[in-house]
């Protein structure tokens, strides 16, 4: 059931930074130019474009078309993705399907956002009446609710969350694209002394919004060879689930779609968690990393804290975790954040991760998380297994 008929042939990423004063288009232009240079192809080879929605251009319903125009591309396939932090990963999956279906031959998946320079999004819907007056601004409050319930059902060792924050910070120190403000070493004391945001969620459990962009290029392997491209990574399995528990009035909020798609993706790849060489999970909050470990199947439900405390997640450890620092420590460039860990996984598999290079990473799991609904856990979970 693994597919190797479409290949990832390149990636690029801008530096992630605060208040750049730049637009999503300008950041996209930079990452676009970088990927053309690194892959060594002309832009005329690209005939498909997937665009991740952005907070900074959220008021423009024609964003993908404007992006296509800004980049000077003429395409036979254009897609816009609006499943939040799951969008970059789903863009790769949709691009692969479009290539398989003959809608295009070579597709660019671009994610760019500048929410710390300009915020032009309004979620509308029920929020004005049923969420805003309560003082729920966004994900931190909802994750506080999820953590409290998890803690009550299973027990939560805070030092396990601290370990995630610390190891990812060590990785970010080795990543030249990581946000400058986050490039200071962290100690266990720093973690425990970081202020409570929304109990039991601390500041250092959370991502920080930044500006930035990233891109991925896909085509069929035979076309890649024709273009003289040597480095390839295959997105062999992909699964996605949106609006998990969306038809339940009292769902278990410690459960997510990963409990379904995680184990099934591994089965399709004919892998067990022990075979996974690198884990690049979506990391908006430390608890999200722990919950994914459990629900994808690295350990049993409720054993996430112990699993984290007993394993080594350094780039040279037994299960390298978000080796570029993840969004937690490299920064979350708005909705382009879903591409940060994806690009790092590809960089590692291309053997281009420099001093944090994982030895022979033959495969990787990359995930995405999107959209926090009313009184439930996250709405979209997606997972991709990459192989060389």
């Amino acid at each position: 059931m693994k597919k190797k008929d479409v290949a990832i042939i390149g990636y690029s990423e801008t530096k992630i930074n605060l208040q750049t004063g730049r637009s999503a288009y300008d950041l996209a232009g930079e990452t676009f130019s970088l990927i053309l240079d690194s892959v060594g192809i002309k832009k005329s080879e690209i005939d498909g474009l997937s665009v991740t929605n952005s907070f900074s251009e959220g008021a423009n319903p024609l964003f993908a078309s404007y992006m296509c125009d800004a980049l000077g591309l003429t395409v036979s396939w254009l897609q816009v993705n609006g499943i939040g932090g799951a969008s970059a990963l789903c863009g790769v999956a949709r691009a692969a399907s479009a290539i398989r279906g003959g809608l295009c031959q070579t597709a660019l998946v671009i994610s760019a956002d500048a929410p710390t320079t300009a915020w032009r999004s309004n979620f509308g819907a029920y929020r004005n009446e049923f969420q805003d007056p309560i003082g729920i601004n966004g994900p931190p409050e909802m994750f506080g609710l999820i953590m409290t319930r998890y803690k009550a059902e299973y027990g939560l060792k805070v030092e396990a969350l601290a370990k995630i924050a610390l190891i990812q910070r060590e990785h970010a120190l080795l990543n030249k694209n990581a946000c400058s403000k986050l490039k200071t070493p962290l100690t266990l004391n720093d973690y425990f002394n970081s202020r409570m945001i929304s109990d039991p969620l601390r500041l250092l459990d959370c991502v920080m919004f930044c500006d930035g962009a990233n891109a991925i290029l896909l085509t069929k392997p035979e076309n890649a060879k024709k273009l003289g491209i040597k480095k390839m990574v295959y997105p062999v399995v992909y699964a996605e689930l949106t609006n998990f528990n969306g038809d339940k009035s009292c769902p278990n909020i410690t459960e997510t779609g990963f409990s379904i798609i995680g184990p099934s993706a591994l089965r399709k790849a004919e892998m067990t968690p022990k075979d996974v060489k690198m884990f690049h999970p979506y990391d908006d909050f430390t608890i999200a990393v722990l919950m994914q470990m459990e629900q994808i199947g690295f350990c049993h439900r409720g054993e996430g804290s112990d699993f984290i405390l007993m394993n080594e997640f350094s780039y040279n450890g037994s299960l390298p975790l978000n080796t570029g620092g993840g969004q937690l420590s490299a920064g979350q460039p708005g909705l382009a954040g879903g591409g940060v860990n994806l690009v790092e996984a590809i960089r590692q598999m291309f053997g281009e991760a420099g001093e944090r290079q994982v030895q022979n990473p033959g495969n990787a799991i990359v995930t995405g998380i999107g959209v926090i609904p009313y009184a439930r856990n996250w709405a979209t979970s997606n997972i991709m297994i990459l192989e060389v």
Partner: protein
Amino acid sequence: MKNNCDSQKPIPQPNLYINTRSFWEAAKQGKLILQFCPETGNYQHYPRPVSIFTGKRNIEWREVSGKGNIYSFTIVRSSLPGCENRSPYVIAIVELEEGVRILCNIHNCDPERVKIGTPVKLYWERLSGDINYPAFEPDKCFKK
């Protein structure tokens, strides 16, 4: 008892995305009504344009008891814009007796003493002349 920061809360605008006039009219009279799907016998909240159980528009408003218990909670300590005088404040998911959950603030309770399973009952917050907003308070014991 009136929360001294009520005036800082965003005032909801009924009917922005679906017809919620009945909900706010009932609230003004101190009644909590929620959407009920008669085909499946289930409540749903927040209000939707269809039954989330059947996809049909056969839904009605029914009054609920306003009694339940705390399914989960968090204490918000950051000073969000417009909430400077409020923090720390408690946000909870309350599970009502009728089998439906509601996001809400918990009043008349020391935030540090809120627990999962705490029995709560309705507490109406007056946000404006027109809007009574549903919140909850402990049903008995450990008041401030």
